[in-house]
């Protein structure tokens, strides 16, 4: 079946502009995660949605970052007033939301954001 998809694959924006990144999770997956991967760094957790529960926003680096998940499916990560330090690959992952060892997070290909 289809995996996690993200759009756009690449985004170049000017400093100060707002950007929206989209994630389409695997159908039926109740858990959705956003991570950020900077050059030479590991993946940094940003925000986590699980079903209808309030999202875990503890990883968002500033109030310029926000995310929504509409209808328990598609998610949009919004970065307002982008800064050069926001340049990174933004990865989305989804999982079935169980606690089984077999419940893995499936990652999308990411959106490479470049702020000039």
């Amino acid at each position, binding site marked *: 079946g289809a995996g996690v998809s993200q759009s756009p694959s690449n985004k170049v924006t000017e400093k100060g502009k707002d950007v929206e990144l989209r994630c389409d999770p695997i159908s039926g997956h109740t858990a959705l995660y956003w991570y950020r991967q900077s050059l030479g760094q590991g993946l940094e957790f940003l925000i986590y949605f699980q079903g209808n529960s309030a999202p875990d926003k503890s990883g968002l680096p500033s109030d310029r970052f926000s995310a929504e998940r509409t209808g328990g499916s598609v998610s949009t990560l919004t970065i307002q007033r982008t800064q050069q330090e926001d340049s990174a690959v933004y990865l989305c992952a989804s*999982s079935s939301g169980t606690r089984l*060892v077999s419940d*893995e997070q499936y990652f999308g290909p990411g959106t490479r954001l470049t702020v000039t």
Partner: protein
Amino acid sequence: QQQVKQSPQSLIVQKGGISIINCAYENTAFDYFPWYQQFPGKGPALLIAIRPDVSEKKEGRFTISFNKSAKQFSLHIMDSQPGDSATYFCAASMRDSGNTPLVFGKGTRLSVIA
């Protein structure tokens, strides 16, 4: 505070050799330890994962060794092949606490040379 420390940053191994990547964690509440493989331009993909109730898990050429008392775990790739050249990330989470997000190490870039 980096909760999962990974080493080495980069590794070069001869074809047919053993690749070993190490990780150490701090939070004793972690109960799920996966390894991810990432090729350039792609998202990470789960390679193998372990829970702390076992000390070793093997899947094909890939083995996780887990030392709970030392709070360390490692990935061994036997008979390394050029196709294994990728970046490997260890991670940890608290699965029993409700599927918390993964905490990742900074990655190891593996190059397998013929």
